[in-house]
């Protein structure tokens, strides 16, 4: 659906090297008092990868995701997103970010088209009407574009929230447990939609669903109590040792 590179007017893409990595985390931690939500997290995620983050409840997955997507500030360490240091230039980083959460982030009392128009204008899309129409076609909701978002079914709301998240043509998309509350059919549609918008975007997904997460991902990260327990790309990840490691950390529900 997206053929060539984003021609954003003032993105400074640093030297080719830095640009090779979508995410570079150095010693990132989020602590408050003696509570370490995320503890010295380091990893580099190449561009175009699909990272799945696993871990028991309270392991700090969502905190990490919120830090990567500039929703909350890390207490220490540095995060480089597409070559942009999040602490120095959060606004520049935000232009390349899309966020799909189990919450739809849509205004129930506004129509689908109005929701997308607002998002498009806020991001500064030059031809918002055209962009909104394209996005609605992509998620097959153009026939419902005048209906209020409140009247949509769970699957349709999820599709509209994908459209909203991709309105600014982001290079990196964060997914926060997108499958929660979706029936199997809606999950299927969701996967197919994500695959269609894959292009060379980077995805980072937090999910409780092991096989769904593993199926889609090119890199896997397991977290427990804020620390990185396992991180590797899909190729050198053998399934059984990973699943028993997963059972040991997540199965015990250690939090």
């Amino acid at each position: 659906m997206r053929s060539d590179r984003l021609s954003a007017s003032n993105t400074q893409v640093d030297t080719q090297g830095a640009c090779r990595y979508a995410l570079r985390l150095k010693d990132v931690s989020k602590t408050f008092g003696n509570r370490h939500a995320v503890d010295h997290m380091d990893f580099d995620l190449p561009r175009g990868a699909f990272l799945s983050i696993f871990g028991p409840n309270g392991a700090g997955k969502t905190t990490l995701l919120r830090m990567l997507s500039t929703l909350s500030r890390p207490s220490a360490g540095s995060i480089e997103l597409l070559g942009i240091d999040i602490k120095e230039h959060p606004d520049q980083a935000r232009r390349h970010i899309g966020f799909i959460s189990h919450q739809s982030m849509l205004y129930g009392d506004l129509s689908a088209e109005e929701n997308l128009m607002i998002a498009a204008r806020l991001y500064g899309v030059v031809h918002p009407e055209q962009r909104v129409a394209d996005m609605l076609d992509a998620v097959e909701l153009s026939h419902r574009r005048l209906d209020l978002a409140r009247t949509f079914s769970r699957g349709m709301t999820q599709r509209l929230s994908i459209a909203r998240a991709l309105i600014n043509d982001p290079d990196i998309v964060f997914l926060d447990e997108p499958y929660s509350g979706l029936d199997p059919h809606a999950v299927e549609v969701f996967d197919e939609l994500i695959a269609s918008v894959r292009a060379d975007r980077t995805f980072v997904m937090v999910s409780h669903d092991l096989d769904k997460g593993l199926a889609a991902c090119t890199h896997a990260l397991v977290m427990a109590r804020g620390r990185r327990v396992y991180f590797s790309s899909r190729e050198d990840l053998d399934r059984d040792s990973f699943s028993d490691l997963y059972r040991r950390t997540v199965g015990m529900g250690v939090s």
Partner: protein
Amino acid sequence: MTQQMKRARESAGARCDRYAPLILGIGAILSTLGFILAFTLAAPVNGAAVDGTELIGDQMVSNQLLFSQKIFYFHMPVAITSFVAIGVAAFYGIRFLMTHRACYDMRGRVASEIALVFVIMVMCSGEMWERFEWGVWWTWEPRLTTYFILMLLVFGYFILRAAVDDPERRATYASVFSIVTFVDVPICFMITRLVPSGVHPTIFRSDSGLSPDMLIPLLLAMFGMFCIAFGVYRLRLRCAQLDVRLEALKERLDD
């Protein structure tokens, strides 16, 4: 935070804590001294004129000697100390917003606790003095209303802290509120004085014309109150730090 910076901070804390009981002692001595002098050295304030003059001691006295004014010698210092405590709480609020470190939030909370105690003391003494001066339990007189509003604001501060669960969010909201309180109080102080309340003009009591012999007990009591406030603050802070260390131990013991 590097090791020796941490140790420096710890030692500064330790040194303050070692002096805390000493300063508390000095404060107690100073304020009792001020208390005694207030009743012996300071001449009572002249009240309403009396028809006739009498020779008392070496002066010709021709008006009532107001005894109730003696409350002033503790009322004023306590009031100023409470305002200084609010200032300290706001200072730590700003420090927290800049650094997002839990230790500043704790200091802000303890400073607000001290402020609450001193505001209650101001209200009690002000109420008694005013009860005798005007013979009525409550009038919307500028001074009393200002301190009543200050008391409500500090109550609001603690109600707000109780209503938020997430520690970082609670700390941010509490810091912002203490800064707004610190700015709001002088405005309230000024507006209740300068705005003649519509129909009936306010009576201006200039009680700040102090003769030297009145000034000495006042200053003694003032410094005494400052020392007491600092001593109690350090003590309360050590209790709070003990609680935090206990929580950390408890967590480590759980797993």
